[in-house]
């Protein structure tokens, strides 16, 4: 029996941070396909604050990057054509975890969820938690923020 050697690529915190920094650079450039390219084909996606309550069901921001994340990012950019972000901190470790504090904002031109466009601008602090695999690809994206702040800045005063 031969001893097969297992090759494990070890990535540094700096390398992991660089991938996520590139992710937000591409988000700022509205390059959604480029964002998805930084993720594994089956990357997990979770936006816990994303809840759209209808009469019979609730749409939640949970699933995969390819099927839930990409439509949300694309929809946001369509609704806020000048959508941008300002990264404030990137904290990474050698195990593939990266945490980012970032302000995301833009001026609404199209409906977003239940919020109708009134030409108003929002900017809201977010925190993202990424998990990268040993190849430097993002295998999970999780984002948290305060939707009440966004709704009120956009002039939408109804909780639902």
């Amino acid at each position, binding site marked *: 029996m031969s001893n097969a050697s297992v090759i494990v690529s070890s990535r540094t915190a700096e390398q992991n941070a660089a991938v996520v920094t590139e992710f937000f650079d591409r988000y700022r450039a509205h390059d959604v396909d480029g964002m998805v390219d930084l993720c594994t084909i089956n990357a997990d996606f979770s936006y816990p604050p994303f809840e759209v309550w209808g009469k019979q069901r609730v749409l939640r921001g949970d699933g995969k990057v390819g099927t839930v994340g990409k439509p949300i990012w694309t929809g946001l950019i369509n609704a806020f054509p000048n959508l941008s972000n300002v990264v404030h901190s990137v904290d990474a470790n050698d195990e593939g975890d990266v*945490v980012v504090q970032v302000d995301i904002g833009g001026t609404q031109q199209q409906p977003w969820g239940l919020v109708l466009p009134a030409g108003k601008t929002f900017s809201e602090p*977010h*925190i993202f938690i990424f998990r990268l695999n040993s190849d430097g690809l993002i295998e999970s994206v999780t984002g948290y923020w305060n939707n*009440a702040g966004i709704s009120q800045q956009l002039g939408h005063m109804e909780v*639902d």
Partner: protein
Amino acid sequence: MNSRSPQKVVSDFLDDFAVRDIDGALGNTAEDINVSVYGLGRHDTGRGTMRTVLADIVEAFPDLIVTVKRIITAGNVVTTVINVQGTQAAPYAGAINQEKHVDLDEVWRFVVAEDRITQIDAYWCQQQLYRRLGVKRFDQIAIV
């Protein structure tokens, strides 16, 4: 010198918060801690600020359950994903008490230096919280 790891300092803080021991939790923080609680729009400095944030939660949700779902350590920065559950028993953030149950995922990011938490950034969605508390409008929080 007896020094704890940043993760241990944060775990001790959350353990104390989970059993509603506010003095114990604050014992893990620096006197001049920077506090940002985005859902409440609160940004201030000092242990007194953190005491108010914790005390308001404990008072409004006396059966509070805090579950740590994930801890990520990167140097002296510790990020925790926590789940907070409780049944409202007093007004909170302008919302009157309707005895509603809250179940909310949150992220609290801590910066630790010299065995003390020097910064807390707490992220939760106030819209989710208000939805669970039965609030209908942001400009009429006390009206249900």
